[in-house]
């Protein structure tokens, strides 16, 4: 009898397990170091299960996902499930929601899938996403779909280490622009380019308004990839087939234009959620954004190009649909940089804020960049009348200006009602702010580490009004929730989790606070996120997170990301001496030291160091303290006075100094200071004036009667030929090393 009971319970138990096993889908992901050759050189990367991108994971709605991450790296990692609704501790943001996966350990994720659609997953640790840690995460609908499918995950690849990319961005290094200019003339937007384009006036106004060369993207990439390949093929599709493409932008900082050689593109879903089908000629896909589209293979024995071109139009990647002779899509023509510059000149005020001239821009409908698109606004034409305010509302409307239909957010409509439940609404206003020159990206001029978490309450509705006051577009991503994009479709406003917001746009998004724990809301451009462009939403009264036993300490770890200091070094080994500079700086603080070391005592030795903090949103003001030490054999020109009638100590000085630097129009740094001997000095300096693609000039003059003029010809990312004349050291020439 007893045995019988055991047998029965055994059967019941195994049956139960059987049921459970059917619903749980398990994946094992092994993260390893690897060497890849995407851009012509062998480089380090991270591969998962031996491949880049990470494997495509498939599930059906209602399944439970059980995913084991085996970290076989020598560093910690993490995986975030982008766009999924799941318990907070499964979200995968290390130190915020989930324990970091330490080197050599295994981490188990387990969560139920309560939605369907196209999603993706990627590392949320440092810059790991850039070197291969991204993959598709597909949840099929329960009912069978009749269209054949294909996944297209886009990414960007640079031969430079991501750490280097990030460091250089923070040092306003323009090597990226030079690399771009090798492919597309004029990308540096130097004075020579401006003259060749008959746009010298535009360039002058641009520098007057303290702007560096304008660009639509910061980083030069050696390759763009579709499913890890420069070109991918889906040859099994036949003429007449309709194909659902699941397109994921898994790149770190590249927006792509999508075009199809076989006709119109029918957009059917965005960020995993269905939308009413809308037919377009092209669309732009923001970083981390997802679109499902349906395209038709119109002719037999032909492969049709589905073309993804980076927003800067430097390179592209393609997917060929069908087999046979290859039908090309027409490529996007190069940007009209100086038209873009003219537009920015008009929009930017002298205080660095943007002026939308009352256009109330939103939802990608007015694209200021159309002035740079030859296919919309025609080829370079200098004789056209100046932009006037009259036709302002159509001047930037791409769809009104041409026959090409470009998707924008106003065209997205949900097939189902998406209204939020009746509840108290908490409204939050954010201004997206940035400073290109020092690569500071923030919200309301505060980085993640400079703000407290934003407390929200379960059951309320949260409405976020975003205004982009920076000069770049930002794909803002909310973890763990879908938000409605309030776009004029009322009850049928579409649901998304990434919102691209262009400069000067104001967009409203809202979501029902239904979860618990802490959720990240950030710009998905990797280098912007790492610079601190984000906020944390924190549910009031959330239970403690078992994965983070010491939440305060963990948060400090997270904050460290945007507090990090970047190092820069430059030395000119010249015939008349060594001339150099070193900087160690973060979002606000900067330690800087400069030296001029002659080979002869009459040329002298000088060293200056400053430590200070950048103030204000534009960071034009930099008060500092420091010291100045110098020695020069004086018999050459003897004692003199400085411009303030004081005894000139420029040849023998050892003093503390207090000063203030201010960035003037034309990016001239005015530096006024007083030292501990009571001596005043005023100095004006401009560095890196872009004369041609590779030629830079710098000028300096101060009230001690010292002056300097130099020219530098950039050979590669570390070396330049340089020549300069210095009032103390005379003429010199040599090689400049930059790190």
């Amino acid at each position, binding site marked *: 009898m007893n045995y019988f009971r055991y047998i029965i319970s055994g059967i019941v138990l195994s049956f139960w397990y059987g049921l459970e096993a059917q619903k749980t889908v398990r994946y094992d992901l092994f993260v390893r170091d690897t060497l890849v050759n995407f851009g012509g050189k062998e480089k380090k990367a991270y591969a998962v299960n031996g491949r880049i991108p990470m494997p495509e994971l498939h599930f059906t709605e209602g399944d439970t996902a059980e995913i084991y991450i085996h970290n076989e790296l020598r560093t910690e990692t993490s995986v975030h499930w982008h766009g999924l609704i799941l318990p907070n501790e499964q979200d995968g943001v290390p130190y915020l929601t989930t324990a970091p996966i330490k080197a050599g350990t295994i981490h188990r994720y387990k969560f139920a899938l309560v939605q369907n659609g196209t999603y993706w997953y990627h590392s949320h640790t440092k810059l790991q996403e850039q070197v291969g840690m991204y993959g598709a995460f597909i949840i099929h609908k329960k009912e069978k779909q009749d269209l054949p499918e294909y996944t297209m995950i886009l990414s960007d690849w640079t031969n430079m280490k991501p750490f280097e990319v990030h460091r250089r961005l923070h040092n306003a290094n323009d090597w990226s622009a030079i690399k771009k200019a090798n492919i597309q003339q004029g990308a540096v937007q130097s004075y020579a380019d401006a003259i060749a384009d008959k746009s010298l006036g535009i360039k002058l106004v641009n520098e007057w308004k303290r702007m560096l060369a304008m660009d639509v993207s910061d980083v030069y990439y050696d390759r763009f990839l579709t499913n890890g390949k420069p070109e991918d093929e889906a040859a099994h599709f036949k003429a007449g087939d309709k194909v659902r493409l699941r397109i994921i932008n898994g790149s770190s900082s590249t927006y792509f234009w999508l075009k199809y050689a076989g006709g119109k593109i029918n957009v059917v879903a965005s960020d995993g959620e269905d939308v009413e089908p809308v037919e377009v000629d092209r669309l732009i896909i923001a970083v981390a954004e997802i679109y499902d589209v349906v395209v038709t293979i119109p002719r037999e024995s032909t492969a049709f190009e589905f073309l993804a071109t980076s927003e800067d139009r430097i390179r592209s990647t393609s997917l060929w649909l069908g087999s046979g*002779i*290859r039908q090309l899509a*027409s490529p996007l023509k190069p940007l009209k940089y100086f038209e873009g510059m003219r537009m920015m000149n008009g929009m930017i005020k002298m205080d660095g804020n943007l002026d939308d001239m009352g256009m109330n821009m939103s939802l990608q409908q007015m694209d200021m960049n159309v002035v740079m698109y030859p296919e919309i606004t025609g080829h370079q034409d200098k004789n056209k009348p100046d932009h006037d305010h009259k*036709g302002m509302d159509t001047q930037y409307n791409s769809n009104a*200006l041409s026959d090409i239909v470009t998707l924008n957010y106003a065209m997205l409509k949900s097939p189902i009602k998406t209204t939020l439940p009746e509840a108290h609404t908490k409204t939050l206003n954010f201004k997206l702010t940035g400073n290109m020159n020092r690569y500071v990206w923030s919200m309301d001029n505060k980085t993640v580490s400079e703000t407290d978490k934003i407390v929200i309450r379960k059951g309320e509705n949260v409405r976020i009004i975003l205004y982009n006051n920076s000069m770049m577009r930002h794909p803002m991503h909310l973890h763990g929730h879908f938000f409605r994009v309030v776009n004029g479709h009322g009850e049928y406003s579409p649901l998304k989790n990434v919102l691209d917001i262009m400069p000067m746009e104001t967009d409203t998004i809202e979501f029902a606070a239904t979860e618990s724990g802490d959720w990240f809301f950030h710009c998905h451009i990797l280098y912007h996120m790492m610079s601190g462009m984000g906020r944390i939403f924190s549910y009031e009264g959330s239970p403690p997170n078992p994965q983070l036993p010491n939440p305060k300490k963990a948060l400090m770890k997270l904050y460290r990301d945007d507090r990090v200091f970047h190092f820069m070094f430059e030395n000119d080994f010249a015939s008349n001496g060594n001339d150099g500079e070193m900087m160690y700086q973060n979002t606000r603080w900067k330690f800087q030291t400069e030296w001029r070391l002659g080979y002869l005592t009459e040329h002298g030795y000088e060293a200056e160091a400053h430590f200070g903090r950048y103030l204000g949103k534009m960071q034009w003001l930099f008060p500092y303290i420091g010291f100045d030490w110098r020695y020069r054999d004086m018999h050459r020109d003897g004692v003199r006075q400085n411009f303030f009638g004081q005894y000139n100590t420029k040849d023998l000085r050892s003093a503390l100094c207090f000063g203030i630097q201010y960035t003037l129009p034309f990016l001239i740094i005015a530096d006024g200071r007083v030292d501990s001997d009571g001596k005043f000095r005023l100095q004006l300096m401009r560095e890196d004036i872009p004369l041609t693609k590779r030629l830079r000039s710098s000028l300096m003059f101060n009230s001690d009667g010292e002056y300097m003029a130099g020219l530098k010809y950039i050979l590669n990312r570390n070396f330049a030929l340089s020549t300069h004349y210095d009032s103390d050291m005379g003429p010199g020439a040599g090689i400049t090393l930059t790190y």
Partner: protein
Amino acid sequence: MRSLVNLFISVPLFLFSLSCKGQIKNAKTLTVRVDGNCGMCEKTIESAGSQKKVASIDWNKDTKEATLTFDTNKTNKDEVLKRIALAGYDNENFLAPDEAFASLPSCCKYERSRKKSTVMNQKESSSENMENVKEQTKSNQLKSVFDSYFDLKNALVKSDYKQAGDKAADLKEKLQKIDMNKLDHAQHEVWMKIYTDLIAKAELIAKAKNIENQRIQFMDLSATLYTLLKVAKPDAPIYYQHCPMYNDGKGANWLSREATIKNPYYGSQMLNCGKTVETVK
């Protein structure tokens, strides 16, 4: 002195001639087929395909064959042929984008024999019964009318007087070609009432002296065509759109295939003034 001048001239010339020869290393030579017509094509094809020291191409307009020589370490056949196709010329591996072909000078518009004809959703039509197929040919008959109307409308959107005239003449022709016996009952009834009016309006637009007159006639034409649209059963939705300002503020309507407003009554002056009042499916 003279020899010095000579030296100054001859050295750069010598260097120049060296660079022009642009010897191609690791060379491989192939024969490829590229479509085209004339001497002008030859120039375009050769300049698009050639790349200093990397690839050179010599095309023969009679045989439509080209000798391609390239550096196997630096490029490949596909890269060269792709550049040629992007310049507008179909070849054995690539078809030119339609835009590139369209922008070729008219003497260069070769016959695109490599391009296969479009398959019209074989699966759908074969799966449907004969009745439906017949139905489709019926509405296709009217489709040609609407297509030509949209061409006319687009010309007006662009404020292109000449093109609008041509398109109106084309519309008139399409209207005259309609075989009313092949229309279904409802369409037949409407057609009988309006066709003389439609043809007359199309003719007036074709012969109008300026774009303003074309637009006045277009307003009536659009209103009449709308009654036909109601029974036409279009295969893609057609939008009935309204401009509140035209006709001294009385307003005027037009039909469009796109939901986006592009006003044919004012063109670029008020391109997106207006709204969709009805979507006919």
